[in-house]
């Protein structure tokens, strides 16, 4: 400190003076120039004397003194004013000046000390800071390291866990297997023990028996007691056991074995041949399948060579199969299998190629047609849906209408409507009844007419019969064929005709008279040789209604139908009458039937 002090003052005084000089520069402008020059001289030289002399000169002592007093007062020192030794003298009062100096020195020393301390503090602090920073960085490094270690350990732990799991599962399986084996062992052990026990029991019995036998010694001789010897089942005598017999047995045994082997070999050969055939066929087919592709994929020469090779193979195979050497058969077999394998591989490759091609093509197609097809598909779907919707609506509407139709009327209107319908029906029914009544009346009329006609007919028939009888009598009596007679008969016939024509004219008034007139005509022609005046057969048939005469048949049949229809009214008499009439008009019954049939 001491030496420091000695060296410092110069510099510090220099420093102070700098400061003070600068402050003085501001305070006393009169000395600006001097100070400036002093400052510049200061910056050039570092001698203290020149500096001190610069501040205070001979002239400005009292100002300097006052200035220094002011400064001392401002510093808070005791007011040891520096005064001149004598007014106007160039010297100072030494005591206050020295005191002031001493105090200033003290102040300076104190500041120096504090500065030192501060510097020391600062040093210390910087060193601790450095230390701390170093620590910090070291700890950071450590931390990083430890984090890495931790992650590494985590990883290891995970792996170990996995291992544990696998090992556990292994352990479980092993345990299961052990359990299974233990079960097996247990069952085997029980089996063994059971067997052993059985054997032991048997030996015990043996021992017992042995002891019993040894004790008893009553050896019951074993013997067979047969009433008589039996013959052998196949009737042969029993043979002596000779070597020849033994050999024959051996021979037989081998024979049976051989026959069995031969049989199985035969069947195997058949199977083999079939399989070979199948293989050949397969091969041929495969070649066939591949060959149309081959010109496109490979050269025709290759194809030919292939075919050649195959045919060679086939030939060889055929040869060897025909041949008897085993080796060549095997060779052929191998070749066959190899060639089939080759073909199969080719076929497979080909198929794969085709598949890929096809998939490509399909992809293309799909990509092209996708949109279109889907679009059309969608359109179709839409259309169909719309149609379905429409149909549904339609159905709904119809259903509604139907329902309306059925149930929208309330009871009154429904009744009314029903009434309307029934009214209509009633009207119709009335109409029909009217018609019916009319028809019934007509029918009655006709019936009466018919009955009258029938009665008349009956009477006329009787008359006719009488007439006929008389005629016959006449004829008989006058057997000679006279023309007058014939003329008479013809005139009869004519009269018959005329009578016939009459009713024809009357047909419209009474329909039923026709039958009677026709009877008349029919009965009037029993002669063997019909004369010219006698009506022709067709006319007769017509009148007999054998040939359908439109008007008459209709009427008659109608009449008949009417008659038959009135049965329901309970007028069975009419029916009976008609029946009778039928009976009478025997000729007509046939006609009737025919007509009814027609």
């Amino acid at each position, binding site marked *: 400190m001491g030496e420091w002090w000695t060296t410092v003052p110069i510099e510090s005084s220099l420093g102070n003076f700098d400061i003070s000089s600068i402050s003085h520069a501001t305070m006393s402008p009169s000395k600006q120039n001097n100070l400036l020059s002093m400052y510049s001289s200061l910056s050039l030289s570092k001698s203290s004397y020149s500096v001190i002399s610069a501040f205070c000169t001979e002239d400005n002592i009292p100002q300097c003194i006052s200035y220094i007093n002011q400064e001392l007062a401002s510093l808070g020192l005791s007011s040891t004013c520096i005064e001149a030794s004598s007014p106007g003298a160039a010297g100072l009062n030494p005591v206050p000046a020295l005191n002031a100096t001493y105090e200033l020195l003290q102040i300076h020393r104190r500041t120096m000390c504090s500065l030192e301390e501060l510097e020391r503090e600062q040093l210390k602090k910087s060193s601790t800071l450095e230390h701390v920073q170093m620590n910090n960085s070291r700890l950071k490094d450590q931390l990083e390291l430890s984090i890495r270690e931790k992650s590494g350990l985590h990883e290891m732990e995970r792996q170990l866990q996995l291992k544990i799991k696998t090992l556990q599962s292994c352990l479980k399986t092993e345990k299961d297997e052990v359990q299974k084996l233990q079960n097996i062992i247990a069952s085997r052990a029980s089996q063994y023990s059971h067997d052993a026990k059985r054997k032991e029991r048997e030996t015990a019995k043996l021992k017992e028996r042995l002891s019993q036998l040894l004790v008893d010694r009553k050896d019951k001789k074993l013997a067979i007691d*047969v009433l008589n010897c039996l013959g052998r089942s196949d009737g042969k005598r029993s043979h002596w056991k000779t070597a020849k017999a033994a050999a024959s047995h051996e021979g037989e045994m081998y024979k049976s074995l051989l026959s069995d082997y031969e049989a199985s070999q035969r069947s195997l050969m058949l199977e083999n041949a079939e399989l070979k055939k199948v293989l050949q066929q397969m091969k041929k087919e495969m070649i066939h399948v591949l060959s149309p592709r081959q010109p496109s994929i490979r050269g025709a020469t290759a194809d030919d060579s292939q075919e050649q090779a195959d045919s060679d193979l086939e030939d060889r195979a055929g040869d060897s199969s025909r041949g008897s050497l085993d080796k060549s058969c095997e060779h052929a077999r191998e070749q066959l299998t190899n060639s089939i394998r080759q073909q199969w591989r080719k076929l497979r490759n080909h198929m794969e190629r085709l598949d890929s091609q096809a998939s490509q093509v399909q992809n293309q197609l799909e990509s092209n047609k996708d949109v279109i097809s889907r679009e059309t598909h969608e359109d179709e779907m839409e259309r169909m849906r719309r149609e379905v919707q429409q149909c549904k609506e339609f159905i709904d509407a119809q259903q509604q209408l139907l329902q309306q139709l059925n149930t929208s009327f309330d009871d009154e209107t429904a009744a009314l409507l029903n009434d309307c319908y029934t009214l209509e029906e009633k009207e119709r029914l009335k109409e029909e009844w009217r018609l019916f009544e009319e028809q019934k009346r007509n029918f009655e009329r006709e019936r009466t007419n018919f009955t009258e006609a029938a009665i008349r007919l009956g009477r006329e028939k009787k008359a006719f019969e009488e007439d006929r009888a008389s005629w016959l009598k006449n004829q008989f009596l006058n057997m000679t064929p006279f023309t007058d007679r014939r003329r008479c008969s013809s005139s009869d016939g004519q009269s018959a005709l005329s009578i016939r024509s009459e009713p024809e004219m009357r047909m419209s008034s009474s329909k039923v008279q026709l039958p009677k007139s026709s009877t008349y005509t029919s009965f009037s022609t029993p002669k063997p040789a019909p004369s010219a005046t006698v009506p022709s057969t067709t006319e007769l048939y017509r009148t007999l209604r054998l040939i359908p005469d439109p008007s008459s048949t209709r009427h008659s049949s109608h009449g008949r139908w009417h008659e038959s229809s009135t049965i329901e009214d309970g007028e069975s008499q009419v029916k009976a009458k008609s029946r009778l009439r039928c009976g009478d008009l025997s000729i007509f019954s046939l006609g009737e039937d025919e007509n009814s049939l027609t």
Partner: protein
Amino acid sequence: MNFSEVFKQSNQLCKVSPDGKYLATCVQYRLVVRDVSTLQILQLYTCLDQISHMDWSSDSLFILCAMYKRGLVQVWSLEQPDWHCKIDEGSIGLVSSRWSPDGRHILNTTEFHLRVTVWSLCTKAVSYIKYPKACSKGIDFSRDGCYMALAERRDCKDYVSVFVCDDWHLLRHFETETQDLAGLEWSPNGCVLAVWDSCLEYKVLLYSLDGRLLSTYSAYEWSLGVKSVTWSPSSQFLAIGSYDEKVRILNHITWKKITQFEHPSTINNTKAVVYKEVERRPVVSDDLSLHNITVGTTLFNTQSKYEICPLPVQIPVVKPDPDRANPKIGISSLAFSADGRYLATKNGGFQVQSLSWHCTGDSLILLGKEQLCLCYMETEQEDK
């Protein structure tokens, strides 16, 4: 279905003669022979003791009656009722007795399976075969009656002896590769002998007639193995039923498995038709997993009918006690139909004592403890 009146019998000894004309039943110590069509008693024989076993000879002329306790076998003739034959095994005892295929020899297995005695009824001669094996099916005759295969065990090893039935000449004697031979069966054509191991090991061996090993088949290890084996009538297939509830079929050319049938407890196969008998009392019985069964008939004295169950059908399964030996799981009986079209199998512990096909192959009869079921197959589909 008509049933006759009930006849008494003992020991379930009731057999129809091979020619189908006679019916023999045993009642205690009596043997009753009836005519099959009229059920009239034709003959009545009296044996010396209670009959334990009875069998017809192949030509239907003789019947043997074995009395195991006394060690006696008596043979009766149908044609000559006063003909008699008595075979006394003496102190050596008798465990089983059977006819030879020609109907003139009787094979008696003595107690403890010490030996097989062959008695000839023609010559009164005796032959002995030593060390027969005591297993479920130790003797088998080929179908044509020419050969007999006998399982033997000496020095803890299994052997098979093939005898010619004509004169009991030993044709072949070979060792088998089994741990513990449980049974053997000839194929119907008589050329192959199927030999299977006990249930502790799944092994089926096929030997040709001359003793060569043709093939071995083993489906799996360690678990309980073969339970039942049967040949198809054409000798083309061998069906093996095992404790794992599966039937495996081997073909005769390669002796490899061609197919296997499972017996799941839930039937889901759309081709299967499941008939369930519904009775007044709600007891489900005779549910089998048959393939393609059709109409069944109803029993005549209970009001029951069969209704078709809709799929899937859950079959009630009773889990057997695993601690006991010979558990009641697995395929216990198999039967091919006569034309080899169908295979009927019985799985599990169902109370079906036997299943057998009619000789025309169209119907199957199932015999339960108290019930009888006839199944007719419809021959419309061609099935393999």
